[in-house]
Each structure stands twice: as structure tokens, then as C-alpha cells.
């Protein structure tokens, strides 16, 4: 994990619009996109396909409750 991601309180949400033919394809593309961006713990929060593409919101968790949060120890907070 890079240092800057340690500044994220809990998760990074990625919102965009994917050109695709249906929701199934949108889901596949979304997970590929998150993997390409380096997120390990990924889930899709929202996905809706209409016509040309899909509005999506994907989430990459950096910390989940119970983890040890690096930002808690950062003296520059």
C-alpha cells in the first residue's frame, strides 16, 4: 500500500460511467478496473445500466473496522 492510501479513513469510492452492453458486462468491467487500479478488497456499491452504458460506484476498502489504521498513528494528523 502506498503512503497516500494510508491517509484514507476507510475506503476509496470510484464513480464513473462505463460504455457497455448490459449490467453483467458493467460488473465485469468495474471489477477489472478496480483490479487495474490496485485495489485488493473491492465491492460494487451501485450499478445501473441504461442504454449506452452503466453508472457505477465501486469501493476499494483500505481499512475495515477492527484493522490497525495507519492514520491513527500519523503524527502529522
Amino acid at each position, binding site marked *: 500500500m502506498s503512503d497516500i492510501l494510508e491517509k484514507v479513513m476507510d475506503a476509496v469510492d470510484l464513480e464513473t460511467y462505463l460504455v457497455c452492453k448490459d449490467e453483467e458486462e458493467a460488473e465485469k468491467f468495474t471489477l477489472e478496473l478496480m483490479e487495474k487500479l490496485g485495489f485488493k478488497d473491492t465491492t*460494487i456499491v*451501485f450499478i445501473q445500466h441504461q442504454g449506452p452504458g452503466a453508472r457505477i460506484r465501486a*469501493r476499494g476498502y483500505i481499512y475495515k473496522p477492527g484493522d490497525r489504521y495507519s492514520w*491513527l*498513528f500519523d503524527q502529522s494528523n
Partner: protein
Amino acid sequence: MSRKKVLLAPLDPVHDIGLKMIKRGLEQNGHDTILMPPDHTQEEIIKAIIDNKADVVLISRTLGYGVAEILGKFIDLAEAAGLRDRVKIGIGGMAIRPELAAELGFDAGFGPGTTVEEAVAFVEDREYIPAETGVKQEKKDITADYKYDFNNKRIEKLLDTIVDGILDYVSDKTTTAIMRAELRRQIIESTSESEKDKFRREYAKLCDDVVKSFYEAGKYREKTRPLSSDEVSALSKYVGDVNSRMRPMKLQHTDKNPVVFIQYGTGCPFMDIAHIKSCEAWGADGVIHFDPSWGARTEGFLEGYITHEEDGSIITYENLKSIKESLAPYTLWQVRAHRGLNTPETVVIAGKIGADLTKINIAYGSLSGGTDPERLTVDAVAAIKYAAEFSMPFDVVTNEELSGVPAYKAFAGMLIVSKLGLRLGGKPILQPLFCYSPEVMINGQMEDNYVDFNAAKIYCLRNIVNAPIWCGAPIGFLTQTEDRVQSSLMTALHASLASSLGVDGISIASSDEAFSKGPITAASRIDTLRATQASFRFFGHANMEPTENAKKWAEEMEEGIEKVLESVVKNGSFIDALYQGLLGSREDGAYPGRAGRNSVLTKA
């Protein structure tokens, strides 16, 4: 401070509203102003500065196209005219960033969001200190203005009869939860470690095996772990640092807007605190502690700083104390004790630490919360007594509606527990749901809009009793989707509906309300706080107008409540009425809870 002559000039084809506002502010502060109309050239503005012998010039530029070239030329001309040594020049507007202004040689640059006061400070050569008007100073007691007078005397009489029966029944009853609550109080109050250990040993004997093994063998439940000492000290520093830079926003736009609560319970008290501090910064007035559902089915509480990996944050004295110590002094704090096998102890811990509010409802807790009706009735009377002792008002939530119980039945249960609370010296707060409940899904009261049926609930309760109302929990339940824009909008509109109806408080969800595949995030909490603030700003003192259905349904609800209360009185026993389904039946979707069944003891 000397009086200044200020020339205000829009270097823009049309836009000058910002300069008009600043002109007014400057004049109120005793300065002379000259406002040029839009669409003048740089050369014309330079000439006006010279002709008017201005001390200060404020230029505005809204359009971004070619901004650097246009402003650069203006500064060059000012330099060539010999103005730079004696005239102070500031630039502001939507297209301006302070870095750009500095780079081009202006004395100051004011970007979007600049206040009139900031511009006046620049003209007067003084440092700008932001006003603290948005900072909250005091907690609001939402029960303060209520006398609990019943307008519907028939209903009041029925409630009194039922409450008499409850108090008579519990008078010779006790439970292990009540005994543990007293032991917990002794553990908290004792200053002797050996005495604390003695109380702990007694306490452990009254607990389930999983809790007993914690006290006797130091074993933790699966998916839980103690937080380390370096995490605990890091938290303290984190909170201190955050508090030193807090300038909280204010959600309310008018004094009629209700106080706004958020719910937390990520599983980790430290993540909770991080979320709480973020919510305080974005204007939340209060926070509500959510404990894990397994905690409600377990006899006894653990001790220490404990985190776990599931929803709901474990109630321990230390966890709650760390949360309390992190709160801003003006933040209202509620710890729920509305269901489960530890309700009296929850109120004791919350009260000793200084919680402002708790949550108690026998009908909900036993019909939809999984706790045995008899057990919860005995425990709840003790819990209400503690709430009264610690001066903690408690809301009486009606979440059994989400199981399918019709509002009028849920309200009958709420009113019984509220009357019980009043009799025991407590301050109950009515908590109707603003939700898309199974009742309305089946019967169609929300086919047209989400306004009328929710309004009917408030009209009905106001017709019955003069009591504080806090809509929950959260408002808009089952109207939100996983789309954060839709979800935030639904929350905000329900918030403004609540405000229109003059309620005292609301609990709002995050925009992750309908998302169930992982923990909710801090950002999603800010979404709905922001939306609520915008909606309060939009409506101000204006109201939403329900249709005639609202009053009609309010009358039907009131009649329904009265009939339910009559049936409980006729039955002769509140507890039996819960088992029999008079306040929510199996057909409705309510099932008497089993946790703690047959555990009530007769006092020796």
C-alpha cells in the same frame, strides 16, 4: 481605521453581483465606494482609478476564458500608470485563485466562497479572522418545552390502567440483568481494585458462558480483539489534534429545523470515533451508539477496549468512555437500551459516563428485537428508573413497523411505555418512523407520495399528547437505494418533511443506508449531512403541504390506537397482550422474542 475610497470594477462583460455585495459591506463600514458597470476595458478602469483618486481597487472576473492574459495586461497598465506604489489592488471572482493573483502581481486574490467581511478586511489592511457564528455552543434539550399533557383523555385513562398493571406485576420481580446493573455500578464507583475484583467475580456468576470465560480465563469472543495500548494512546492524540482544528458547520438554517442525529456502530470504537468527528465537523448535532445484535442475546458485558469485525460496537465501560471523551461538548450522545438482556446495565454505564439520552421500548424490543416480553418488561422498568436517576430522556422507538406491525399498533405500544416512563419520573420522547413500511406497501398509502402517511403520524401523536417527537430511525427507511444521490435526496426530503411538521429531532442514515455488502464509509455520512443542510436551506420557514389524506389517516390511527389500548386493558395484562399479539401479531410479522424466556425471578 482611516476611511478609504474604493473603486470596484468588474473586468467582465456582464457579472458584477459579488462587487455589489462588497460595495454594500464597505459602505456599512464607512468607506466611499465607486462601482463601475460591467464591460469596460482595462484602460478605462485605469483611467477611472486615476480620475477618482482611489486608494483601493477591487477587480472581479467571473469568466475563466483568457483570464491570465486579461489580468496580466491590467497589472502591466497599472504599473505603467504609476499606480502600483500608491493603490492597493485586489482581484476576485469565480475564475480567480489566490495563487494566480499572487503570480500576476495583485495584492490579494479572492476565489469562490470569499465573504464580504474578507474583502472589507483587505481594504482596511487588517487580518481576516473568520466569524465563529456556525460553531455550536450548547446542547439542545429536546424535551425542555413539553409538559406531556394528554389531549385525548380516554387514551390517557387507558394508559394509566395498563401502567398500573405493569408496575404491580414487576413489583416483586427481578432478573440477573438487574443484579448485574447494580454490580456494574459498584465496580465503576469502587476505588479499591480488590473490591472491584470481588464484584467482578460475583458479576461473572450471573453471565452466559461466553462472558464468564472472559472474566475467568481472559477469553475473547471470535472476531473480537482488545485494542492495544499504543492504539489507545494514539487515539487520544488523534482526537486532541482533530479537536484543535474543529470549526463545525451548522446544519440548521432556521430555528424550526430539528436537531440531527447520526447512527454509528462500525464494530470498532476507534473507527466510530473517526466517523463521529467527521460528522461533528459536517454539522451533526447528536450521535447514537449501535451495539452488536449478538450483544442483545448475551447475558453480561465484557470489559476493556474491544473491537470486532462485525456491525455494531461492543458496549463496555471503556469503549463508551473513549467515545464520550472524544465528543465535542455540544454533541448529544445516545446509548440504546431498547432490547436485549442487558438493558438496565446499559443505562447504568451510559449514565455514569454522562450520556445525554437512551432508548427504551418494551413493545419493539420484545416483538421485533428478539427479547422475551416478560423479561424485557421487568428489565425496562429498572432501566427507566436508572434513566430518570441519571436525567437521561429516552426515545421510545417504533421499529416494529419495519416488521409489518401497523403504525397504530406500534404507537399504542409506544404510548404505553411513554406513560410508564412518565410515571417513573422519566422523560420519554416519541419516536415514530418516517419509513416506507410493509403496512403502506400493502395498503397503498404511499402510492402517490411519501408525505401524507408520515404527516398523519405526527398529526395523530400531537392530537393525543403534548410530547417531544424525534423521527427515526433512520428517516426515509426503505425509500433509499444504493445510488448515493437518490439516497441522500430521500434523506434530505424526509428531513425537511420532519422540519415542516415541527418535530424536535431526526435520525438520519448515511448514503450507504441500502448498501449491505460492507462497512459504511465516512464519506457516505457526509453525503446525507450535506444534503440535509441543503434541504433545510432550500425550505427555510416554508413548509411542505400534505394532502387531505394526512388528516383522515391521522384520525383513523388515533381510533386504532384507542381500540388496541382497550383490548390490552380488557386482556388484563400488558405482558400477556404482547404474547397474544395485541400490540403486533404473528400475522403482522411480529414474533415475541425468545432471548431471556423464563428468566424472570421472584424477589426473595
